[in-house]
């Protein structure tokens, strides 16, 4: 009996630890996305000067990151528990979540294929990307205090 309890406890610990890694990894990806987007937003706000080469570099990094998102690997069932702001809706509406990921991939791919050459174009591009972030966060993310 003692052994069984121990085995169960160990298993529980192991799964939490496994999810902790998955959660930390996906958050790290999101943080990198935020950094790349930040480079662009700073230009839009006039905090840094417009720089076409830097725009392309940031868009390329963002797009490479986004194309790698794999819902099954990064959002396994049960990983809404723990130090995460992932909403249970991800698992209640997997098709809806996948659609947001696909949209995200399409938007960043389109941006790299046609990177902004001036500030006005960049404003529009950042607007479209920001909208994609917000739409997914609106439905599939929840702050837990």
């Amino acid at each position, binding site marked *: 009996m003692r052994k069984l309890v121990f085995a169960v406890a160990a298993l529980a610990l192991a799964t*939490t630890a496994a999810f902790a890694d998955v959660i930390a990894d996906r958050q790290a990806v*999101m*943080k990198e996305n*935020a*950094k790349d*987007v*930040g480079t662009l*937003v700073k230009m*839009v*706000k006039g905090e840094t000067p417009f720089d076409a080469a830097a725009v392309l570099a940031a868009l390329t990094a963002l797009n490479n990151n986004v194309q790698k998102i794999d819902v099954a690997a990064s959002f396994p069932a049960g990983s809404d*528990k*723990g*130090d995460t*702001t992932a*909403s*249970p809706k991800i698992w209640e509406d997997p098709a809806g979540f996948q659609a947001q990921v696909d949209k995200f991939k399409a938007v960043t791919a389109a941006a790299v294929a046609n990177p902004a050459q001036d500030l006005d174009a960049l404003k529009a591009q950042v607007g479209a990307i*920001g909208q994609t*972030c*917000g*739409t997914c*966060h*609106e439905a599939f*993310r*929840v*702050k*837990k*205090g």
Partner: protein
Amino acid sequence: MAVLRKLAIAALALGGAGAAAFWWLTVPEKLGAETLAALGTGDATRGQRIFDAGGCASCHAKAKSEGDARLQLVGGVELKTQFGTFVAPNISPDAKDGIGGWSLEDFANAMLKGVARDGQHLYPAFPYTSYARMKPADVADLYAFMTTLPPIAGKAPDHDLAFPFNIRRGIGLWKQLYLSDEPVVALAAGTPEKVLHGRNLVEGAGHCGECHTPRSFAGGPENAQWLAGAKAAEGDGVVPNITPEGRDMSGWSESDIASYLETGFTPEFDSVGGTMVEVQKNMARLTAEDREAIAAYLKAIPGRANGFSGSQPKPTG
């Protein structure tokens, strides 16, 4: 036997007095002559800003409307609460199904007193507890703008509420507790105009307290915990503390706040989420001065401990 009779009469009298008090306390009260005079004539261009600040389209247009559809106020958005489900009505200028027949006075009574044209109480799911703090002139501007919108036919479904919440008269008691046009945060004489303007936008049209302030058991705002954050109305999330003691707010400058309201990005370039997305889109439509005023006010109000971490501590893991 005589004792019993006396008791019954006493109970009846008491009950009668209670009913009379209930009747008297719950009479829908309309605006006084002074406020009505302060309405003025109204300016539709200025009114568009109030419309955006007030987020009217978020509830009264079809869910997720963009572009021109935001201006078709046909109603139908459902609001799920602990009291039942409310459905936002048609407030387009349609004479039959909307509020096309309403005068400015009727409209102002709804916005500032929560009283409908037929004299009945409106439910505070329509956030007039906040709108009551708007300037009368802003209400007139909003009215002028709303009359320029397209009339749309069609009634939204009725609310789905359980007894006793389906009795409008009872809202009168609620109003005794929570309806006031006094500012929530008293600001000292000599407070900069910018902060006062921010207070007007946040406490009034912006109705930020409806989500960011915790609610009492009766569903009213706990103003001692003004903007301190609250449990979300739906789901198990929280709405953050946006007083200067909020976890994020304590590190954000005024320009960080204004920029968040404009772009939807935090200083770390995280993106806005949840129900704040709709609000942020509306904030992006205001002027830079308006957003800066809101930011200045949020920095000027008293800091409060988190309003959502009250009763049950959240288990982690």
